[in-house]
């Protein structure tokens, strides 16, 4: 019971922080409006999927260092397939890329299970492999994205009967994010498979003894991670219109948001909501720093400091709780 309260407390705290940050943003830049919020949602999108990918494996007691590389590979694959192709062809590209992410993720899990090499090492090796594959697919940033895909995350959702003023605060990107995550996460969380993922993260031995198919569950967790990463890759292509073979800063960001979101590295605890809110918090901090016209390099330092401070604070709290 205690634990449950603590977790919910953490997420509500994050929400409060997010609201405070919005207020701060509004104070810094009185003109901050729905359009800016829309671009924030678009900027958050790839990060959010990266974080979702990381969250699933962290809950299952693992870590996935290949998240960013997986996004790069899926992004360049999608971009190069769509280059010069018809709009309809993209209807095939999207499921293909998602399936690719799922299979490559499952491969991560399979390698961990079969070789029994620690997950850090396997996903580190996969990081090299996927990066290499991305470079083979596209040597330099390029490719294209179907127009309807790009349109999917720009603009707002017109909801009939709602005044435009509110409508404007519902960017499509946010909707895409919520729909994609909910379609997978909500049924999963309630299923026996979801419980199994928490179980193997919490105590592998106890899970095994409770009859949980540990190996299969782990593979599925990594496969889901791959699926989320593929969504992230697609989101990258959708927002930039091209694919870039060099992975962005998504690995570190995903780990930071997972920790900030109240998911214990080590597994078994937390949910998806916290890390997603955490991504918004981290992005909004960046926005604020930019609005304050701070040197981007200094911004990087501040971001790093915030991340480290948050992680230290979180660790300190859990340490206190344990005593």
């Amino acid at each position: 019971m205690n634990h449950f309260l603590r977790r919910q407390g953490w997420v509500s705290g994050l929400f409060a922080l997010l609201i405070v940050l919005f207020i701060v943003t509004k104070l810094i830049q009185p003109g901050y409006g729905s359009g800016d919020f829309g671009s924030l949602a678009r900027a958050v999108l790839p990060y959010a999927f990266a974080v979702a990918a990381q969250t699933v494996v962290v809950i299952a007691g693992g870590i996935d260092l290949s998240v960013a590389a997986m996004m790069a590979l899926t992004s360049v694959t999608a971009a190069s397939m769509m280059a010069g192709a018809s709009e309809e062809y993209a209807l095939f590209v999207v499921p293909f890329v998602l399936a690719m992410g799922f299979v490559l993720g499952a491969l991560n899990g399979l390698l961990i299970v079969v070789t029994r090499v620690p997950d850090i090492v396997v996903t580190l090796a996969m990081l090299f492999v996927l990066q290499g594959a991305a470079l083979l697919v596209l040597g330099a940033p390029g490719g294209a994205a179907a127009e309807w895909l790009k349109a999917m995350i720009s603009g707002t959702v017109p909801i009939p009967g709602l005044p435009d003023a509110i409508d404007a605060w519902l960017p499509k990107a946010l909707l895409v994010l919520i729909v994609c995550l909910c379609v997978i996460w909500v049924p999963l969380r309630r299923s026996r498979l979801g419980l199994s993922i928490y179980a193997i993260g919490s105590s592998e031995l106890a899970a095994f003894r409770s009859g949980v198919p540990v190996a299969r569950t782990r593979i599925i967790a990594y496969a889901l991670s791959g699926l989320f990463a593929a969504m992230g890759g697609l989101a990258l292509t959708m927002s930039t219109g091209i694919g870039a073979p060099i992975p962005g800063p998504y690995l570190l960001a995903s780990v930071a948001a997972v920790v900030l979101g109240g998911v214990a590295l080590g597994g078994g605890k937390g949910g998806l909501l916290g890390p997603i809110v955490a991504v918004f918090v981290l992005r909004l901090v960046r926005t604020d720093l930019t609005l304050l016209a701070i040197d981007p390099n200094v911004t990087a330092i501040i971001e790093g400091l915030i991340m480290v401070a948050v992680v230290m604070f979180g660790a300190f709290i859990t340490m206190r709780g344990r005593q």
Partner: protein
Amino acid sequence: MTTSPLLDATGVAKNYGAVAALRNASLSVLPGEVHALMGANGAGKSTLVKILTGAISANAGRILIRGEARDIRSPAAARRAGLLPVYQEPSLIPDLDVLSNLRLTGTPVEPFRAWVRELGIADLDLRDSARDIPLAVLRVLDLARALAVEPDVLLLDEMTAALPANLAEKVLEVVRRQGDAGRAVIFISHRFVEIAALCDRATVLRDGETVGVVDIVPGVEEEIVELMLGTRIEKAKVAARSVSEKAASAPARPRITVKNLRVGIKLSDVSFDLADGEVAGVVALEGQGQDELFAALAGSIRPSGGTIEVDGQAVKFSHPIDAIRSGIAYVPGDRSEALAMQRSVRENIALPFSAALRNWGPIHMRKERATVQSAIQRLQIDTRAQGEVQRLSGGNQQKVTIARWIAADARTILCFDPTRGIDVGTKQEIYKLLRELAGHGKSVLFYTSELEEVQRVCDRVIVIFGGRLVDIFRVEEADESALMRAAYGLPRGAKADIGILADPQSPSSGTTP
């Protein structure tokens, strides 16, 4: 024997690399029987249990369930075959609540609830995380979860270990009824009392082989011990120590004085002395504050009130190193808490030497080897597998944890249930060792969950109940029934009949000041 066995395992063998954990084990369990599985540590009991429950697979052997050959490859398969274990360590998922744990294993909730009530746990919130539930209750929940799916064969590994007496009684009662209901129970225990009261037959393992199957009849203990050890062992005689001998060695100033010690809500107002050359026993039911007492004395937790004096000086411990500097060493009950399992026996014993900053430099290897060797010899540790402590048997591991502090020459040793789950021979050696230590002027504080050990080892016994020190006995007065009574919080001289099988719900009725 006209009925065919429910479970029939023959010729089971298991090798770990070059080491044979099981060579030729067999076990046959009839419907309606409670069958004890016995053997000294390292005999292969746990390996056999793991094989039967699908946790590991055997290299050879045949397992028939209801006469059908079954290949049990996983715990899930064992479950389907009607074999359910309750392991020594609880197997509920710590971060899930009880309800989710039930859902995970496909356990029906209502029967589970009924069993939980039956087993004497009245107030269980199914929404509690397993992490927040005390160990003893977790084990009972594990049992209830197994019972709820009505298994044909129930495997109980040291089920009553770590259980307070009232829960243990309930558990034993339920187990007995399982047998009556035509199902079978495989019961692993070191406690003859329970086995005598409960079991119909016993299978005895030695060195990975089944060496005998005996019917449990009065007086069979000798035979079983003989089978387990392979040689006749003299039943250890209770060493009665004369009062005068003790008085002579008792110094004027106590080694440790605890005054009004308080730790949160777990322990309050505990005061006692510990003298040099003394073994003081601590007796308590599970979770009465003894863990906190030991942790506070060992410097693992900070007391919230009261004082601890060492050699007349008040001390405040904020880290175990402070206690160690005062010559107080702690041997935890759980060996995996004390040992670096992948490291060698030598490194484990020498570990405290390197702890302090000033000892981080080069190690004097020859000197260290000599110190470690003498400790190993003194405890007669079997060092055939000394490269990694994890390959030693449980008894030898426990010896290493004690040897460490002998080598470090600690003046006071806090032993928390050091004989839990280890074989009879090693137990005897540990008793002897503790007495020897006292003979050399060391002091020992010794918590035990087995009351008979008090007579063998202690000079005095401290009884804790509900976080308070309720009585201090001299060893001559500390017979098991007196201790049991005190452990239940009853005053001395009360004539309530509190035996192991008495109803724990009505102890207060016997309270007469």
